[in-house]
């Protein structure tokens, strides 16, 4: 066993396990147990298969298969449920010429332009909570509360709050700003932005707790040391806080960019249904409308596929990040 102790962590564990089964030690232990322990390995294989099978089949049936079916369906025209007709890329061509689809994707780009607010607003709030002024724990709990309320309920709530006679307009009128009073969700110019504000209200708390988790990893000693060195308030922010939570800001930015086009479905459903006209239509809702209201399965799926490609870049980074963390031990 002496040689075993000199080896690295995982190799040692492997050899120990073999030794415990009374098997001869091999000189080199790789990630997979070699012939000496084949018996153990095969039984492990069947058990492993049994454990993995439910997860893989669920994911395969309800995510991977529908995706490939969607890719396939997007090449067909479904006329009233009759035999689908193969039309190649015509659905996609139609999408490129469809003003409604243009509008939806352009609205998507407009929504993405609000990204700085999504990233920095919760950062400021988290930073204020991080100062641990009186009552900070309470604020932390309270700020996250909106996120736990179902989006559809949030939407219904705000439909009242943003209505013509709702509290927002009442407040504006009471403070002499009646010029600004507006049917927020009923006007073509404001509907999309009002909706984004509601979604931001809902997801802001998630951003705050993500940032707080990042801030909590900064050691107090660093601040103490900086104080001794005479670093001031702004110096601490720019030279300690920001560099240290930079990865968290990156993570949250990636999560938002991918998510802001996918989180909105229930909000649109409750607030505007894409209206007035198509002023607040987004691709994800257009998929639903096309497929389930206008019963154009092929075309709807094609828009969905376009949306998938649109957000793929952002979600890819998120998954890569999770994979690196989750597999960090196993992939040494």
């Amino acid at each position, binding site marked *: 066993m002496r040689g075993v102790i000199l080896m690295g962590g995982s190799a040692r564990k492997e050899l120990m396990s073999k030794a415990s089964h009374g098997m001869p030690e091999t000189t080199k232990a790789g990630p997979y147990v070699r012939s000496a322990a084949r018996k153990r390995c095969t039984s492990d294989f069947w058990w492993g298969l049994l454990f993995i099978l439910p997860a893989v089949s669920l994911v395969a049936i309800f995510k991977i298969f529908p995706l490939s079916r969607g890719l396939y369906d997007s090449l067909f025209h479904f006329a009233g449920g009759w035999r689908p007709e193969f039309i190649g890329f015509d659905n996609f061509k139609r999408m490129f010429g469809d003003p409604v689809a243009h509008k939806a994707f352009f609205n998507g780009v407009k929504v993405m332009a609000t990204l700085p607010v999504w990233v920095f607003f919760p950062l400021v709030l988290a930073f204020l909570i991080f100062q641990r002024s009186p009552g900070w724990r309470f604020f932390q709990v309270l700020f996250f509360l909106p996120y736990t309320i179902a989006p559809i309920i949030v939407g219904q709530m705000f439909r009242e709050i943003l209505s013509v006679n709702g509290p927002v307009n009442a407040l504006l009128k009471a403070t002499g700003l009646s010029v600004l009073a507006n049917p927020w969700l009923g006007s073509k110019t404001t509907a999309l932005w009002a909706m984004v504000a509601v979604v931001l209200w809902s997801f802001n708390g998630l951003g705050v707790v993500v940032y707080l988790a990042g801030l909590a990893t900064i050691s107090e000693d660093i601040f103490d040391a900086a104080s001794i060195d005479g670093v001031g308030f702004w110096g601490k922010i720019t030279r300690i806080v920001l560099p240290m939570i930079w990865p968290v800001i990156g993570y949250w930015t990636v999560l938002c960019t991918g998510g802001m086009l996918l989180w909105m479905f229930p909000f649109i459903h409750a607030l505007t249904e894409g209206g007035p006209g198509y002023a607040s239509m987004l691709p994800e809702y257009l998929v639903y409308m096309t497929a389930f209201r206008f019963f154009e399965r092929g075309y709807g799926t094609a828009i969905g596929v376009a949306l998938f490609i649109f957000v793929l870049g952002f979600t890819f980074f*998120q998954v890569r990040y999770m994979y690196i963390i989750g*597999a960090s031990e196993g992939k040494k």
Partner: protein
Amino acid sequence: MRKLKGRTLIGLQHKLGKWTITVILSLYSAIVAAYPVFYTVLNSLKTRLSYAKNRFGFPTSPTLENYADVFSRFNFFRLLFNSFITTLGGVALCTVVAFLAAYAVTKMRIRGSSFIFLLIVATLMIPNQTIMCPLYQTALDMKLVGQYYGLILVYAAFGLPLGTFLIAAYFRGIPDEILEAARIDGANHIQILTRVMFPISIPAVATLAIINMVWMWNDLLLPLLILSQEQRTTLMVAISLIRTQYDVHVPLISAGLAIGMLPVIVTYLLFQRQLVKGMTAGAVKS
């Protein structure tokens, strides 16, 4: 969270500075974070007439009749039951399946286990909206539409990427020596799972269960696809229709919304630490 002594970490040494921050945060939370909920709850306590007279103030004579009304008009108990059974089923199935998969991927030496892990987590990249149509068709083909277990299966599948990730990340932190010790004592995989791994990983399982509970209870799109029939639909689908049925009766709608948000808010306040921990998993390496 680390030890927190309530001391100021960065500058702003004076008490005045701290209190200024408290005031800013209070104003923000009162006006922005809490008011919409507060407004809804207040309105739910008014009668139709008192709402018309007094939209924004406190109800002069608070009444619970809207709540009684909601329960009688909407077959609310049925909706609550539907939501409960699908959420509980989804949470249970997702947890068990993610637990088994995470164990196999992290603690068993299987060829290609990291590929399988990647395969499961990568399905997070597929937006629900992209596959809603083919998913509905698939569910139809499998006769899952209109069945509780149909929605439960779909919930479990959609919760798996994050679930497997969370539990696998937790398992990586459990030293293999513990498992080896159990194996030497003659435990098989099932015994290791139930008697060793499960007790150790209760925090991770609890976190996952709460996260799943929140999104499954709140989800709209999947029940809209799978359980749209009136008898078996969930609370959230019913709430999405509430306005088309009683468009002008704001207090009644408010009561429905208040009941709808109550279970999750209570769960959150009870388990807020686990929930926040789970939500931020992935953001911070710990």
